[in-house]
Structure formats: structure tokens, C-alpha cells
């Protein structure tokens, strides 16, 4: 067998592997994660390095264009991009003419698999880098070691801050601290969220939300289209209760799938993502899943007592976060149509990560029950409908800092994921200007 023939055989075998995908979530990416994760032909990765296909979902504000290009350039060759528009854009975005364009109603799975097979077999050229490969800043050449600091620490030799001494924030053990920016496409942070984190080992020594507020927010939530049902359509006209509640269940299940993946339960995450794509019409269909998760002592153990938000803070977050902290605030409790369905808000007591996932799971089951009971019932025009995930408080960045400084990074990520703040709804990102 010649080298060429063996290479051809190798690529043919590789092309049949699950396509390794990195998902860059923009605005309008409601079910992007679940749709990719539920597919047995795709493997969603947490890092772009080993991904062969970059899926850009939704609208990407111009502020995030450079970070997106950086994500693209980190991928190994051969690589391809699939631009999955969540807002109906059909024209190739400027600077991304090499990408496959997929509409919001198209078969994303088939498009990604096709792009993967083409690029692996050589039918499509691997994409070139988008940004110049240069240091963010030159070598300083200052100080005893030329790194710009004092002694062997400090300084920003290539624009990357070196480790330096920091105050003890937790247990009496003073460690070197190092500054890093995480986001805006970090797999387990909300879309667009950028954190500037000072690490002391595994501990968050300092944390600042750095995503810049941008003018032009149009008031629509980032998680279209389901939020459209609950947040934008309801005030103007009557909406079928069943549609609202199924959208709510879908959103909670999608959230749960992402959280399970974060805790390493990939198979369960796939199961939940599948259910999120096709929400069961009978609550009994979630009974086995609920029982399995409730009995998963390790999940309870990993989430109990972590990221506690209660009292005034929980009230400011509203929605499932508040109810998980024992605050029975729910607009549905004041709705005549929900009263006929026997609606009672579900609450938990502790306001930690554990109660937040239990809250959302219980509300998903409840939503399916309500949808089944609702039949053709509709809300009254102008009626306030409880959104599945209300916008976070305007000062959520400060709240996150107060909550997470001094915690381990794993707990910090899990807490942010459990709160799932909608950065766009909080006014941090523009939706109008896209890449």
C-alpha cells in the first residue's frame, strides 16, 4: 500500500468519527447547545483546540469579533466553520466568507457532519488563520530579568501579566496570583460574559465582570426564540398556556443538560438534551429522570452548600433563583387562567446550586403537567407571564464578585452556570451590530 493510499484510508476512517465541535454561542442561541449535544454524530468539546468544526451560533456583536477569530485560530488543522444564524441572517458575515451558512430552521447536524467530512477528506480546504500570529505586546526588557517586574515576579513581559504575590483570601496560605481573562466564548459561561479573574492556585482571588456595556440593546432576551413566547408575545396578545409551559420546560431542560455536562455526567446530559428538544407531553416521562437525578448522591454532594444566594439578593435575581431560596414569587400565582389549573409555586429552601437545579427540574415537570392540563386555555391579553429565566439584576457583576471571590474555580463556574445570567438582557451586549 502506498503512502498516499494509506493516508486516504486513514482520512476515510477519520471522517466517520463523531465530528468534534466547538460551539461559540452568540445571541439568539436558544437550543444550539442541546441540538448539538443530543446528536450521536457530534461530540461537543469544551476547548476549541481539538475541534474540527467551529459552530458559531446566532448573532455575534462586533465587540466579540476578535475573540471569535482568536477561538477560530486556536483550532487544529484541518478545520471548518459552520455559521448557524439564530436570527435568520442568510448572507455570509463579513470576514467569514469561508464558513458554511446554515439557517435557523436548517438541519445543523447534517451541515456540521458534511463540513467535517469534507474538511477531513480534503474535499474542502482547511481554513487559514484570521489574526496575525504576534505577541500582544513586545518583551519589556526592563528589570533584572527583562520581564518588567521586580525580582523574579511581576511585570507583563509580552502583555501577559506574570504571577505575583497576593494577599491571602481564605486559609492562611499565601500563594502567587496570576491574572487571566475568561470568556466570552468559554463553554460554561453565559454567552458573551467575560470575566477578569485573579487566580491564587485554584482559588478565585479576585473577579470582575469585564463585558463592556454597549448601546443598542433592543430589549429582547438573548435566548430567542423561546423567550419570545414568554417575554415579548405575552404582553400584546393572548398566548396558549400550553405553549408557554412547554417552552418553559424546554428551557429548564436545556439548562439542566449544560449543568450535567459541567459536572462530568455527559451521558445524562445527552439524555436531558434529547428530552429538551422533544419535550415529553406527559410528566410521567420525566419521572425516571427525576428519580435518577434526585438519587444521584454525588450530584447533591457536589452542589450542596455551594453558591448560596438568599434574602434580598435572591429576590433581585427573581425567577427560579428566588424560588430556590424559598421566595414564592411567581407571576403565574396572580393569573386567573393559572388559578383554574391549580398552579402553586414550587419553592426550595437553601438557595444553593443544589436547590437551583432541583428547582428547575421540578419546574420543568410542573410545566409539563400544566401544559397537559391547560388544553386550549390562553392567557389574558396584557397579562404578565413569568419568564423561565428573568433578566439578572443590573449589578449582577458586583453580586458575582461578592459571591465568588474566595471560592474555588470549579465552584465559581458551577455557580455562574446555575444562575445563568443573560448578559444581553442585562444590557451588556448589543444585538444590532453583528460581525
Amino acid at each position, binding site marked *: 500500500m502506498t503512502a498516499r493510499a494509506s493516508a486516504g484510508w*486513514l482520512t476515510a476512517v477519520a471522517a466517520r468519527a463523531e465530528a468534534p465541535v466547538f460551539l461559540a454561542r452568540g445571541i439568539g442561541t436558544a437550543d444550539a447547545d442541546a441540538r448539538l449535544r443530543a446528536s450521536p454524530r457530534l461530540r461537543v468539546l469544551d476547548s476549541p483546540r481539538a475541534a474540527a468544526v467551529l459552530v458559531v451560533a446566532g448573532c455575534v456583536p462586533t465587540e466579540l469579533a476578535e475573540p471569535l477569530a482568536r477561538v477560530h485560530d486556536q483550532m487544529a488543522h484541518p478545520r471548518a466553520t459552520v455559521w448557524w444564524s439564530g436570527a435568520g441572517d442568510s448572507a455570509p458575515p463579513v470576514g467569514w466568507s469561508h464558513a458554511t451558512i446554515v439557517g435557523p430552521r436548517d438541519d445543523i447536524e447534517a451541515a456540521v457532519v458534511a463540513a467535517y467530512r469534507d474538511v477531513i477528506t480534503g474535499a474542502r480546504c482547511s481554513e487559514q488563520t484570521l489574526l496575525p500570529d504576534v505577541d500582544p505586546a513586545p518583551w519589556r526588557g526592563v528589570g533584572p530579568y527583562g520581564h518588567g517586574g521586580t525580582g523574579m515576579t511581576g511585570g507583563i513581559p509580552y502583555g501577559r501579566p506574570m504571577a505575583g504575590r497576593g494577599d491571602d483570601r481564605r486559609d492562611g496560605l499565601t500563594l502567587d496570583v496570576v491574572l487571566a481573562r475568561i470568556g466570552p466564548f468559554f463553554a460554561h459561561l453565559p454567552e458573551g460574559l467575560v470575566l477578569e479573574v485573579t487566580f491564587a492556585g485554584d482559588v478565585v482571588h479576585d473577579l470582575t465582570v469585564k463585558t463592556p456595556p454597549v448601546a443598542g440593546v433592543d430589549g429582547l432576551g438573548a435566548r430567542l426564540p423561546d423567550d419570545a413566547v414568554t417575554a415579548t408575545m405575552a404582553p400584546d396578545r393572548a398566548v396558549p398556556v400550553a405553549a408557554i409551559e412547554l417552552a418553559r420546560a424546554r428551557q429548564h431542560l436545556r439548562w439542566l443538560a449544560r449543568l450535567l455536562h459541567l459536572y462530568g455526567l455527559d*451521558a445524562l446530559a445527552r439524555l436531558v438534551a434529547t428530552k429538551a428538544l422533544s419535550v415529553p407531553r406527559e410528566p410521567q416521562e420525566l419521572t425516571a429522570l427525576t428519580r435518577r437525578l434526585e438519587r444521584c448522591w454525588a450530584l447533591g*454532594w457536589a452542589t450542596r452548600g455551594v453558591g448560596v444566594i438568599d434574602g434580598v439578593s435572591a429576590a433581585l435575581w427573581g425567577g427560579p433563583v428566588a424560588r430556590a431560596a424559598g421566595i414564592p414569587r411567581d407571576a403565574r400565582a396572580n393569573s386567573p387562567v393559572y388559578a383554574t389549573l391549580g398552579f402553586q409555586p414550587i419553592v426550595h429552601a437553601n438557595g444553593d446550586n443544589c436547590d437551583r437545579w432541583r428547582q428547575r427540574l421540578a419546574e420543568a415537570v410542573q410545566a409539563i403537567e400544566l401544559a397537559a392540563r391547560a388544553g386550549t386555555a390562553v392567557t389574558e391579553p396584557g397579562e404578565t407571564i413569568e419568564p423561565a429565566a428573568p433578566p439578572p439584576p443590573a449589578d449582577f457583576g458586583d453580586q458575582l464578585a461578592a459571591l465568588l471571590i474566595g471560592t474555588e474555580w470549579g465552584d465559581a463556574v458551577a455557580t455562574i452556570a446555575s444562575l445563568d445570567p443573560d448578559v444581553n438582557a442585562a444590557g451588556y451586549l448589543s444585538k444590532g451590530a453583528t460581525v
Partner: protein
Amino acid sequence: MTATAWWGAIAGVGLAIIVGAYLVAVADRAIASVVAGEPMRSSILAGPARSVALGLVQSRTTTERPDGAAWALAPALYLGLAAAALAVVPLSETLLAADIENGLVLFGAAQALAVIPVFLNGWSPNSILPLIGAFRFIAQALSYEMPNLLALLSVSVPASSLSIHDIVASQHGLWNVVRLPLGLPLFLFAAASLAFWGPMNLPDGADLAGGTQAETSGLHLVAWRAGRAAMLVAAAAMGAAAFLGGWLGPGLPGWAWMVVKTLVLLVLLVGSRHVAARVRAERYVVISWAVLIPLALLNVMIAAVVAL
């Protein structure tokens, strides 16, 4: 030992590593399908081979000023340690790659040294998330090594030997899993930690975007994952020999018993990934030091009583 025997031993260990690592990947996919409620697909068997082919096709990425040599060394060193650990585990009464008197010590040493390649894989890319993964594994290794070594030490007491062959032979009539009931759970905890698998996957967790492997791709990534799978195989084989009577059993040939027992432990270890969430680093350390080390010491005392 003749040159032919040397080469035979090396080939045998190599084959066991390759077959074992592939079985880990297949078992992982099969258990995932069961948990996810999906039908068993042909890709469960062929999938790992396709992933390896992809690793061979894909380029190796690099980072800004990495320590390239140390980075490249990490997966090879980890695989080598797994092979060294497996080499001292007897497949049957007469079939053993490295017949040394202090096999238990060598196995423990290989496990202890695993901290080096894991740290190298996290430190070398010069990137923050892999570095945090490396930090985590240092804390993890300091926590699991004591229970691990004490659990291994306990099985040597009734055998009055550090030879794994003698340890298996000492289980005629009563396996260590029965007379030292704390030993196997402690050992499995350490085995999953050593391969940072499932609930013990602190250095390569999703919260670190893959941790020490966050910056790797291509063949490097394949080798790294193969190393983890090989370490699971070595640990499962040692668990079968040290606690489940190794080749001892009725009816079947000794090697068959050893393979069956190893596979049972391997499925247990692999399956833990799909039923147990990743533990928090802080709780992991606290439980290890405050609960598992005392239990491991108690286990050694039980072993001393058994040996009287």
C-alpha cells in the same frame, strides 16, 4: 531472563495496554449509551478506532512559548508508567511479564510518579487553565496516595511478602476483598483518582475546558487519553490480583479468571464516570485526609490481626 523472554514480556504488556485501552473506550461508549437510553450502535465498537484515526490526521496545536519537550514527554511518560505498573501484575500463576520480589513496591512507585507527567501536561503549555489542572492534581495526588499505598500495604501483611505472586497465592480459601473489606473500595477510589477518571476528574474537568488537555489536539491528545485508559487497566488488574484472588477460581483457566475479574473492576471504574458527578476539590481533599486515611490505617490493623 533471555532476550526472547524480554521481548515477549514487552510485547505482552504492550498488547495488554492496547487491547485494554481500547476496551476502556468501548466500555465507556457502551455504558454511556445505556445511561442515555440510546440503542447500541456499531460506532460503539468502531468509534475508538475512528477517533484514533482522527488524532493521526489532525495537526498538533501549540501555544505561546510552551515547554515543548516537557509537553511532548508527558503522555509518553504517563503511558510508560502505566506499562511499568501493569508489568508486575501476574496474568496467571506462571504468566508474568516482570517477576520481581517487590512488585508491590514497583507498582506503588509507578503510581506515585504519575504526578509528574500530569503536572508536566498542565504546566508545559504555558496556559492558565491547564496550569490550574496541574495544581489540582498535585493536591489530589497528595490526598489519594496515602490511602492507596496503605490499601496496597494491607494485602502484603497476610502474605508476608511484597511479591504480587505471593499475595495472590495467599488468598487461597479467602480473598482479600472479604478479609480486608475496606481495601478494595479504598484502592478503587485511588485508581479512579490516579487516572483522574469520572468523579475524580479534577485536573481535566469541564470547568477548566479540559484542564491539562485543554490545549492539546491530534496524536498528543490520543496518547494522553490512551495513557489514562492504560492506567485504569493497570489499576483494575492490580485490584483483581490484590483483592479478588487473581487467577484463583474454579473451572476456568487461571488467566481467564484474571481477565474476568479485571474486566469487572474495569467496568466499575469506567461506569463511575456516568453515574457520579465530579467531586469538589476541597471536599475531595478533606474526605481523603479526614476519612480515608484513618480508614486505610484501620484496614492495615485488620490485616495485622488477620495475619496473626
